[in-house]
């Protein structure tokens, strides 16, 4: 006897602006407990080579509607927002109004007022807001967290995080200050900042940042392409994040994320994207990743939280705290001095 199919969750992916949309589409299309609909009305205005909109959906073999209104009238249980950063808030408000749980790409917003308005809207609507920080779900990070929680590392003293990657060229908006809210400081501080938020359980007291536009200077970027952000936490921990788009275009892989945590009893370094086969193929140096897919683990948390009726993590408040670090970093760059939080 076949078991009856699990109750189907209706999930709508709103926008294909973020490159992660492709991963979410693939993961969700492969699940038999999810019914998927997509919409990307702004795709037609994008200057990228594409594909966007209906072409993108057709390429992935998923259902598509031309407008967000049609997507909301489908009455999704949940949405995944993959729009340009500056368009997150509007879509969060509309999704909350439609009573849908929300998984939003990071960063939550491009300014604090928007982030707070988004949180207020989801609270009023009684829906969940999760922010897409997939590295939280990596087994390496989970082990680090347990080593800190168990006291094996002693008292944490000092951390260096790196989130270096290729310049995101497949989507032009990543380097457009209006849509992205900034450059490398916006794109690549928040992942490490979120891990530290969770790992340390302490708030940030002071932020200092420097940045430059030397990497990819030939493209005359309107945003910073390199940056170093140093945070001092209430509990005394000092931490620096290198958020630079410094992975050379000639490298065989996109980049990665590392966290080196030093405590009174030693140190632990994690590199969740390190698992790979190295070598050479017809294109030269090869990098073939293997291991767990972090997006898949994150989507599982988002979906199971709905099934279980609990609040998924990382939540909107965490999204706001990490955004506040980015804003302080931008202010520090502008003033040339640290910013007190």
């Amino acid at each position: 006897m076949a078991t009856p199919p699990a109750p189907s969750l209706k999930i709508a992916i709103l926008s294909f602006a973020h490159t992660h949309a492709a991963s979410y589409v693939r993961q969700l299309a492969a699940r038999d407990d999810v019914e998927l609909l997509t919409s990307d009305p702004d795709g037609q205005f994008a200057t990228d080579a594409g594909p966007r909109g209906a072409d993108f959906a057709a390429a992935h073999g998923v259902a598509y509607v031309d407008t967000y209104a049609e997507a909301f009238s489908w009455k999704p249980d949940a949405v995944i927002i993959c729009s340009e950063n500056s368009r997150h808030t509007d879509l969060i408000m509309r999704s909350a109004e439609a009573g849908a749980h929300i998984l939003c790409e990071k960063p939550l917003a491009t300014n604090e007022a928007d982030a707070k308005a988004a949180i207020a809207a989801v609270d009023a609507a009684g829906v969940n807001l999760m922010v897409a920080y997939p590295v939280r779900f990596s087994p390496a990070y989970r082990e680090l967290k347990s080593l800190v929680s168990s006291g094996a590392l002693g008292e944490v003293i000092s951390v260096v995080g790196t989130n270096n990657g290729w310049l995101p060229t497949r989507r032009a908006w990543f380097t457009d200050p209006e849509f992205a809210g900034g450059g490398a400081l916006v794109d690549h501080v928040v992942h490490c900042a979120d891990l530290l938020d969770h790992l340390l359980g302490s708030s940030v007291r002071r932020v200092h940042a420097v940045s430059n536009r030397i990497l990819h200077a030939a493209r005359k970027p309107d945003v910073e392409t390199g940056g170093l952000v140093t945070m001092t936490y209430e509990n005394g921990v000092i931490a620096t994040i290198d958020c630079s788009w410094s992975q050379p275009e000639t490298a065989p892989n996109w980049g990665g994320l590392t966290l080196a945590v030093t405590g009174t009893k030693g140190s632990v370094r994690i590199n969740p994207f390190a698992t790979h086969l190295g070598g050479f193929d017809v294109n030269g140096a090869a990098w073939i990743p293997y291991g767990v897919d972090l997006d898949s683990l994150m989507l599982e948390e988002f979906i199971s939280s709905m099934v279980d009726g609990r609040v998924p993590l990382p939540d909107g408040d965490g999204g706001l705290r990490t955004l506040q670090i980015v804003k302080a970093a931008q202010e520090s760059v502008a003033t040339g001095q640290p910013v007190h939080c």
Partner: protein
Amino acid sequence: MTQLRVGLVGAGGITRVHVPAWLALGAHITVYSVEGAEELARRHGLSVADSMEELLASCDIVDICTPTTTHRDLAVAAAQAGKDVVCEKPLGRSVAEGLEIKEAVSRAGTQLYPGHVVRYFPAYMAAKEAIDQGRLGALAVLRFYRGGAGPKSDWFYDESVSGGIIADQMIHDLDQARWLAGEVTSVYAVQNAVRSPETPAEAHPRRVSAHVTLTHKSGAISHIQGVWGPPTMPFRTSFHVAGDAGALSHDSGADASLDKDLVLDATESYLPPPDLLESPFLTEIRDFANARLGRSESRVTLEDGVMAVGLADAALESVATGMVVPFSEASIHPAERV
């Protein structure tokens, strides 16, 4: 050729690598130290001097391997006695001391070589060469890490004596950042020192880390992390240098040229583990010895030593004030500002 006569001041940890280097160059060493001179001399077959005067009378070049606060007086005395000097880093406890040394050396017409030995570590030399060849394009973002078990002697942890981890340990990478990415225009630093459970209540906190961020004249930015960890922490250094045409990195902990798995007593030294290659201290001291004879320019100059102390001073000021500290060559040499 007459034998090079070295006057070694101090008999502490770093002499364990200086002495073999001098001996490899065929030098005769006389050691003067407030403690440990007899034992060091016995182990390596050195002569012992009972006073600084006796030491100065017995040597051509003085090698200062003492705690930081004594560097200025010893270097000035050596210069006034007409001796060339090798001085362990940091050159002095402050820029003022560094400048006093520089003036004494210049007045005496002698030479002084500050021991920024990392410039002689092959991986760092290779990075410098690649950068100078333009293989990375314009440098943008540099990161340096240096960490391991904290030193054993308490004076290292007393900032009033040593300048702490920034002036004693991270000065290596402050010098590296300046060597690789050029002059510095601003300095920001934070430090966190924590008392470990086994540290005696009267001693200074012994788990220490600091972060220093430098902005270079070129626009490049550098980050340096230093760690003095628990006695079990292996010594390790790493760097990552990214430019607009490429990126290079090195991690001493990832050197795969020899991988041992043997039952051995753990070494307790805070010094770098022995390398399969020539000791960088020998490479350094040979460079100094050759420069002294006018055969070549030394890779590190007295001015480099002064600037490194200046960067450490600025970082310590930033830690104390919580502010970004502007930095320039002119701020180090006020007399030359005019």
